[in-house]
């Protein structure tokens, strides 16, 4: 077992992990971060996306030991004491989620994307912001709407 220090949604956590353990496994099983979903275990679906030192990463394909010392954020960190942030609010208002399994991962990927791309076109949202994520329920249209709405709100 290896000792690893992580900051998870602002909280210092120390855990002992197997060297082969994936970040997604550690966060879910040892730290209870069940907003991280494991849809494919092969970096394709994006449901396990978290932010690691402000970069979105698919936590199913990173070893926990590689993340030692990292500042990790999950979808819950975008809310302020239970009050939804702009992106979360837009997802709800635009009906951008159905089963919700892909949603936390999409939001963490898009949150990083909007930091660097303040005013994306719908085409850019489809081909860039959502490039790494699958959704099986919504057909994406309302997700694109929500990202447009959130981008405008964040600009203001």
């Amino acid at each position: 077992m290896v000792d690893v220090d992580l900051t998870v949604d602002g909280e210092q956590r120390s855990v002992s992990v197997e060297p082969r353990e994936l970040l997604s496994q550690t966060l879910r099983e040892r730290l209870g971060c069940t907003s991280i979903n494991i849809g494919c275990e092969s970096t394709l679906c994006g449901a396990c996306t978290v932010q690691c030192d402000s970069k979105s990463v698919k936590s199913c394909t990173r070893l926990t030991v590689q993340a030692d010392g990292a500042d990790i954020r999950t979808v819950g960190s975008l809310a302020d004491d239970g009050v939804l942030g702009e992106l979360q609010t837009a997802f709800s208002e635009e009906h951008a989620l159905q089963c919700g399994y892909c949603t936390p991962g999409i939001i963490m990927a898009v949150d990083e994307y909007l930091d660097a791309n303040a005013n994306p076109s719908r085409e850019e949202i489809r081909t860039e912001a959502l490039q790494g994520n699958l959704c099986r329920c919504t057909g994406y249209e309302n997700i694109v709407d929500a990202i447009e709405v959130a981008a405008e709100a964040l600009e203001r």
Partner: protein
Amino acid sequence: MTTDHGIGSDVSRREDARVLLGESKGTDDIELSDALHVQFIRSDKAHAEFTIDATAAREMPGVVAVFTPADIAANETPAPRPFTLFAAPMTGLDYPDEALWQRCLATEKARYHGEILGIVVAETQRTARDALAAVDVTYDVRDAAVTPSAALADDAPVIHEAAPDNVFFAGGQGDEEAVRAAFERAAHTAELQKEPQRISPSPLEPRSAIGRYDASSGHLEFTATTQIPHAYRRLMAQMLAYPEHKIDVTAPDMGGGFGARQHPYPADALVGWCAIALEETVKWRATRTENQLVENDGRGYEGTWEIAMDADGDLLGLRADINYDLGAWVARGAASLAEAGNLLMTGLYDIPAAYSHVTGVVTNAARVDAYRGVSAVPMILMLERLVSKVAKQADMDPAAVRKRNFVEPDQFPYEAAGGALYDSGDYERNFDIGLDEIEYEAFRDKQATLRDEGRYLGIGFSCWTEVAGLGPCGHIDVASWGYGSVQIHPTGEVTVYCGGSNHGQGHETSLAQVAADALDVPYEDVRVVENSTKEVSEGVGTYASRTAALGGGAVTKCCEKVLSKGRAVAAHEFDSAIGDVTYSDGTFVGPEGAQSLSFGEMADKVHKGVDIPAEMEPGLEEQTYYDPENCTWPFGTHIAVVEVDPETGEFEFHDYVATEDCGVQINPTIVEGQVVGGIAQGLGQTLYEDVEYDDDGTLLSDSFRTERVGSRGGYTLPKAEHMPEITIRSTETPSPHTPHGAKGMGESGSIAAPGAILNAVEDAIEPFDPEPMTPPITPEKIWRAINGEEP
């Protein structure tokens, strides 16, 4: 109205906050550390006798048990029985006998890649996976047959001794003679062969199940990825020969179902078996590969479809001869689905004669069963392609032929030639809205002009219906009511219990709207409970677009009973006749408006049993098993406009318009979400998705992939960049028989999109006189069709 959140309002969903805050809980989010973990030894071969040597695995630290088929047979806990069939035949189809019903594990030989051969139980999931890798399985491999045509060939391997011809069931429905006569007098006929291919529902959450067994009470509890908690309980009781009243099932938040979780799987029963045999809490979670290997596929039809039309453009007859790929065992719902498709094979058209013959074929592949749109998908797809094809052959406009043949509004209830009894519809009005939206009158000129410039635009129509709101009881030999119960708290607040399962459809919101509307109370005062036998006493589950019609219908009926009792309480209070009491804005009002009693005051009186009629029982909780008169028949029109690049076979969408009619819409935003989500799945089926086995029966599409087309292996789900922008319009033809007029709307896109897209692409490349294409239509297939090669 007290509520501004009643039927018809676009209320934001209550379900969203817990997802967005990261607080939703699925099956895999429960029992994170304490349960024992199950992994299944699965066959690497599609058709093989096998022996298992688990010596090394049993000796590994942390391994609790390894069960081979022999160990399970010898255990004092009886091995799970085979799955029963979902329903008895509706139409006289010759159903398969018990020897062919799906087994929980292979005993003598494996018949498909991924079939369960044994069980490993360990202290952690990683240890269980390590132990699985240490199990040594030796195979004696036989030839495999992975498609109906391969399984029906003269030299095909025998997969089951009980079905030496590899046929599970066969039969015809409809008037074969009338159809033959129609084809004889037809001026025009068209024919299509093969398709639609086997595809995978692929919910994003892999399946999982937890079994808990309390030896002292004998209580067996499941938490599982299922759409049907109550029916799951009934089935587990049968399969495990265990008392139903000692079983509870909870379906927590789930990452999609789409029909693939309408029926449990061998893994579910074996998790329950392990819990009982070990007297422990055990948990299983599928990997994505495991999920793709064994979760049921959908479609899987091969066959010939034909249509007949007279010289005036009247459709005369429709005929289908289908070989239905069932996989290695007859799945629970497969035979019912084969029959159900025939009911609506004439779609929205008044076609006087229809006949279909279906042969259920066993193959060395995973089971085929329900998937969004079920058998309406192949039947509507082939019908819509044939209507366009025969119109083109007759040099008639495909829109005009459709309009000429629609069932007219005054023909309802309409008995279709395939056997369905449609409840209501106004098809031409719905179709015309789509034509206007797409500016069809100008389209053909534009198409001709652009063709002269070397640009190839095409338009595709697809008019659909489905059997939604599945009931009524008595027609099929399975419970198909809608369960509801409504509890009125002494404060006037309301808890609604419904027998479905909410896994993305937004029932916590939409059913609260129904109750708030029916009771005329604030929406905020209503809470909806579903998904568990521990909280809701009965249910049938969520599938076949049934919850809006049957769940909503049951809630409406319960609320009517509540208000009836409330009126009696108020009449007693007012010392008036019940008929003189009116109710509006949450208040009962006496004759002349002189006296009033609020809903909450009434609830408090009846709760305490104070000031109520002498013969009345206290308490206010009403229950319904709502048995509808008929299924509901939503319908609509999808129109796609595409432009094909003849140099590459690639195409792009210029427009996609869906005009939908699901009767009364409870929450239009949720309806639109269902429509667009369904279109994505229909688009996936048409352009990308294909369950691929090699000739030995090894599944190649055993994980997701993101390439659009090309390399073998992997399963392509549509991404955001693949989807067109979609315009949605609607008409509202209420169901005449559901209490609130709703019909249900879960499956339109997956039914209608394939026909719209295929017809549009074939219309675009019509100048090249292409052969019909079989989906998924890749750019290569389109290019080949353009260039006169076999597509």
